[in-house]
């Protein structure tokens, strides 16, 4: 035990003095989510505002006066004298945003309680155009509706046979679980893996590349203990990367405007001791699994470059099951509970929503622990081969 501790102490000192490790394992995961969230929401808001306030150039052909008057505000520019033949070109080259062509009998039909026809020419690729024109047409429509209700002496309820009051019994927690629940594990699994990756290269391949391994192999301390010390160090850095991601995400959410208070309350609710403990119980074996797997793979490489070429394909293998958990309809069942990575992602989703079944959770943690043991055993096997350890 003392040897393992000695190795951990040395490796942590060594690796934490490396700015690259600090950046990839602590700083980047902590900042990634807030920056991403902030960046995306700000960008989205900006784009929406821009589209919403942009003046639309619209041509109305054969429009009745009470429709024309709907479009008389500062956000629309009405263009007159348009020949129908050139409409498509005008929209394509951007000189017009949309054209409304009213049928000759439009007014007549509307007046006689029928549907008046019109063609709306626009490009669906121009966001918001259709929506903004519909808003105008809808307000015309409601005026006509009111007139008709009066004319036919109907109550407005006669035209609305259903009155639905929605009672959503999904708690805010569950809603969040569904909305971002898949995203949280996706992000922390990836950062946990990346957090393990750099120290694994540094602590295992680095010893070979720098030629320090020979001396290390001549000490009486057992090779198993030395490897365990290294694996634990790598796993610790992976865990810290994952935790920094989650911490960064929750801190980031508090500083972004426009998040409904219900949502924030629910997030505070999620971040309880229970969530953190349950997450830890999965994160620890996950990190040890990553550490063992990475060590076993990079031990055969004699340079960083070579090690990187082994590890990069592996990161895809890790990302794919994490991505599957993002898909709608993929849930924790007795089948998915056995699939590594996918099971931890799905379980996290359920824990956030508060709907996890204890039996599922035990299997997830149990299978992760088993996997971690297998990975460490595998890496010890590799580490014991003299052809692997020496250049």
């Amino acid at each position, binding site marked *: 035990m003392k040897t393992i501790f000695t*190795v951990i102490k040395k490796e942590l000192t060594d690796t934490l003095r490396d700015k690259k490790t600090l950046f990839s394992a602590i700083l980047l995961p902590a900042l990634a989510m807030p920056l991403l969230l902030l960046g995306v929401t700000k960008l989205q808001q900006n784009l929406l505002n821009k589209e919403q306030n942009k003046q639309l150039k619209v041509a109305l052909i054969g429009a009745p006066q009470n429709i024309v008057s709907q479009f008389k505000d500062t956000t629309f520019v009405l263009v007159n004298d348009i020949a129908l033949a050139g409409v498509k070109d005008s929209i394509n080259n951007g000189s017009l945003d949309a054209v409304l062509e009213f049928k000759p009998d439009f007014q007549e039909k509307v007046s006689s309680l029928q549907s008046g026809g019109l063609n709306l020419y626009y490009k669906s690729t121009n966001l918001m155009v259709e929506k903004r024109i519909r808003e105008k047409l809808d307000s015309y429509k409601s005026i006509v509706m009111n007139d008709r209700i009066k004319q036919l002496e109907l109550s407005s309820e006669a035209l609305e046979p259903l009155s639905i009051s929605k009672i959503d019994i999904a708690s805010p927690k569950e809603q969040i679980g569904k909305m971002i629940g898949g995203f949280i594990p996706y992000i922390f699994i990836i950062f946990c893996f990346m957090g393990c990756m750099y120290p694994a290269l540094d602590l295992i391949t680095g010893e070979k590349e720098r030629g320090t391994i020979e001396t290390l192999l001549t000490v009486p301390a057992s090779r198993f203990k030395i490897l365990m010390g290294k694996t634990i160090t790598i796993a610790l850095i992976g865990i810290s990367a994952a935790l920094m991601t989650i911490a960064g995400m929750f801190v980031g959410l508090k500083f972004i405007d426009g998040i409904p208070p219900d949502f924030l309350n629910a997030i505070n609710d999620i971040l309880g001791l229970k969530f953190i403990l349950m997450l830890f119980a999965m994160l620890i074996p996950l990190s040890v699994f990553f550490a063992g797997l990475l060590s076993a793979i990079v031990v055969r490489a004699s340079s960083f470059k070579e090690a990187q070429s082994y590890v990069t394909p592996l990161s895809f293998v890790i990302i794919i099951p994490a991505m599957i958990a993002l898909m709608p309809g993929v849930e924790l069942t007795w089948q998915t509970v056995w699939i590594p990575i996918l099971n931890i992602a799905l379980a996290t989703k359920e824990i956030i929503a508060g709907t996890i079944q204890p039996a599922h959770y035990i299997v997830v943690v149990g299978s992760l622990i088993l996997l971690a043991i297998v990975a460490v055993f595998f890496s010890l096997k590799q580490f014991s081969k003299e052809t692997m350890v020496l250049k």
Partner: protein
Amino acid sequence: MIQVENITKQYALSKKQRKELQTNSTSISAVNNVSFTCKPGSVFSLLGPNGAGKTTLLRMISTILTPSSGDIKVDDVSVIENPQEVRRRIGFLTGSTNLYDRLTPGEIVKYFADLHGLDASIFKERKEQLFEQLNINEFSKKRIGQLSTGMKQKVSIARSMIHDPSVVIFDEPTSGLDVITANSIIELIRQCKQDGKTVIFSSHIMSEVDLLCDDLAIIAKGNLIYNDTMDAFRKQSEGKSLTEAFINIVNQNN
């Protein structure tokens, strides 16, 4: 005391390696049935051209590699039966050994002392003595990355000697070092001899060998082709330079 008894090291060849080496045999011998003895209080030098198997042999003595057959006894402890116990008795230093760049000399020496399971009080005493002797105190708190090659080599020495090994193994300890730094190694070897330790070192620099060594062995292509005292070797060289004599012996056995 090191007793090397009929030691052989074979490596299995993969299909690709067989093609590269244009051979049909499934294995290659890096060291072939070699025996010799290194006595305490004397310096044994292992000579041989590049690729002769010197490093493989020294790695087997230091338990980094396991012999395919034969045995090596270090102070009467077998490297095959009890490698852990052998490791307690040996200090290992190579010219190409690097250190951990982000640690300080103090931290590195402490790390290796801990891995050797040294008592705190013994460690303190040994460290003070070694740091004093090698003038490491001036830079003991700087990180290795900031030190010169000479300073690093001194730290490597301190690291290899911290547990006061009775057997010291040097694999081309002076290769790539300037004369002044190389001299610190030569001093160390003399010191070890004086202290009654068993010293084995590999080299192909005859002047160094001439200066230090009591017994020598020459190996080529994994085979032992000469093993005698330095005095006998000098006599045999019949007025030729030692380098010439060395080349002659290697060529005769080619």
